[in-house]
Each structure stands twice: as C-alpha cells, then as structure tokens.
C-alpha cells in the first residue's frame, strides 16, 4: 500500500508521524512524508522535515520526505490523486484544555475532498 502522510508540525501530526512510521516498518507499506505549511503550528517546516527524516532513519525504512508548498489540504489531495496513493494519513486534530477535539482545516478539506481513504490518527 502506498501511504501519503501529511504533517505540519502540530503535536497530533508528530504523533501521526511516529505511529505511521512504525506501522510502515511493520507492514512494509510504501511511505511518503509530505511536510506542509501549517499556519496553526509554531514549528518551522524545515525542523519538522528533519524530524521526519530522523524518524524514518531510526525505523530503518526506505521512506521519502518532501516539503510541500502552498495550501496544505488541496496540495495533499492533488498529490494523492496524481501520484496514485492509496491512502492519506493525517494527525487527528488538537485537543483543547477541556479535551475538545478540533480536527483542523487541513483534515477538514482532505476528508471532504480526497478520492482515497483518509486516516486520522488519534
């Protein structure tokens, strides 16, 4: 299976990174990590890309990490469709002090528009 993991640096996206990398290691699925620009995240995309490369290397898998410019949701959907990914994986959203889940704009767009399976990691 060909997985496209979209991460922007939010806490939930970094969790999705470790969960997905581990799963790819176990299943042998092909994985591409797309580092997008998330305006809601305080982490710098280059730093996030470095973390992704580290996670991939630590797991010993052959996954590629790329930076994706532009509007994250639409870009992820376009990449998934044109490059024929089977699944898009995203972080499941941030949690407020109360415990309320906010899926975030990127996940909303992808869930509503992707032509492939979408997984939100929580």
């Amino acid at each position: 299976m060909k997985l496209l993991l979209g991460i922007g640096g939010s806490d939930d996206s970094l969790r999705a990174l470790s969960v997905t990398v581990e799963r790819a290691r176990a299943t042998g699925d092909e994985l591409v990590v797309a580092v997008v620009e998330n305006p809601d995240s305080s982490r710098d995309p280059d730093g996030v890309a470095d973390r992704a490369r580290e996670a991939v290397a630590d797991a010993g898998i052959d996954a590629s990490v790329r930076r994706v410019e532009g509007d994250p949701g639409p870009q992820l959907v376009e990449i998934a469709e044109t490059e024929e990914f089977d699944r898009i994986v995203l972080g499941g959203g941030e949690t407020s002090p109360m415990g309320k889940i906010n899926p975030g704009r990127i996940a909303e767009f992808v869930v509503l528009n992707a032509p492939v399976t979408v997984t939100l990691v929580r």
Partner: protein
Amino acid sequence: MSSRYPDDPTVGFSPPPVEFRDREGRPIAIRTLEPAEPGHGRAGDGSADRSGGGDGAETGSEARAEARAEAEVETVTGPGAEPESAGNAGAAAPTGRDGAANAARAALVDMYDAFDPADRAQGIPPSGRDRVRDWLDTVLAPDCYNVVAWDRGRDPGRAVGHATLVPDDDAYELAIFVLQRYQEAGIGTRLLRALLGHGRASGVRRVWLSVERWNRAAIALYRNIGFETVGEGGFEQVMTLRLADGDENRDGHPDQDRDRDQNRGRG
C-alpha cells in the same frame, strides 16, 4: 488560545445559588461545585464503587449513598447527629466540604453515564464511567470553576446540568452540558449565567468556547449570553466573551451611568 476578545465586557452575571422552575415546572437549583481538598482526590467516589462499575444496578446507588451524605451535610443538624450514610456501602463517613464535593462528583458521573451518545460534541463527554471519571479529573481540578444544576424534585437531588471553566493561559475555556431530558427548558441559560457570575467573582475575565459550526441552537444561546464569534471557516466555531472588572459590573456601561446622572440634573 489567542483570540480576539470583545472590547466591551458583558455585565450582570450573578453567581450561585440560583433557584427556579424550568419550563417543565421542575424545581432546579444551581450550586457552585467547590473542589475537594487536594490529596483527597477520588477517595469518596472510589470507595462506593468497590462493587465495580459495569453493573447497571449499581450506577444510581453510588450517587444515592453519596447524595444522602450531601443532604446531611447541607441541612442544619442537631448536636450529636450522624450522617445517615456512615454505615452504607462501606463508604467512609463524609466530612463537610469533602463529603459534599465527592457526592457532587459521584452525581456528575451518574449524569454523564446517562448522557445520550448523540450529545457528544467535539469528543466530549466521553462514554463509560471510568473515562468519565478521568475526564472529570481534568475539569474538576482545583484551578477550574464549576457549577451544577440539580433537579430538586428528585430524591436525592439529581445532577442534570454542568458548566465549567478550565484555565487556558490567561483565559478560560468554557463548556456546558445538560442531560437530554432537561434540554430546551431554560436551564442552559441559567447555568451559563451562574458560571460566568462565579468565574467573574473569582477573577476570570476572558472566556472562550468552541462549538460545532452547524449547532445553531447552541450558537444562539451563547450569543444571547454575550459571546461573539471569532475566526472563520472550519467545523469549529470559536466564540469569546469578556467579563467586567469591579464597578463595570452594574447594569450598563460606566458611560451610560454618567449620561443618566447628567440628564437627571436637567429635570
């Protein structure tokens, strides 16, 4: 949560106690929920649950034993009177404030256990008594503010609504929950006003909440209280409110009072 807060505060919120009849004629009381002393944690709640949480027959008894204790604590008893629940269900004899706090907590566990799953919004309240208890640890923490609505027509009193303020940097996040059978009866508005009164009296000034964008009834409720929408797009709508300092909390702004005084002089 960095949000735009309204320039003008909303005034006129009074803290509990509040007593009223809801639109169905049920006698409702709103009370502040004071946290138990730190270190006592869930002792009162756990001790009544030794028989296990999965048994449906037990679900009400936890609150009943504790609530009897609460009733004893709240009424004025003569010298030498013992709380009735001292020998019940192996629960430790509750003392004063901790007894009341733990009884209220147990009643909230029962309330959330009875919640309609369809009333979950943005993931809360969780389902299952253990998950509810874990979540209540967060919202009933000592740095939070909580008020509970009780149906006084039930013996013992049943918790039917709960509103909470949870700290978030220099602001507080608000949430409110009303048992389905008690919705659309005017309780939500009263709960919100009582919570905001309690929060304001305790120093809370900035309040925000999130609500599903399609939940028109809730958004109308919050707007009527004084919340304003901020942000745009997405499943989640954020709303904010500013509470007033000292003198501002009379009816109307300080400026309006000044104008009224001037006009009075003109006869």
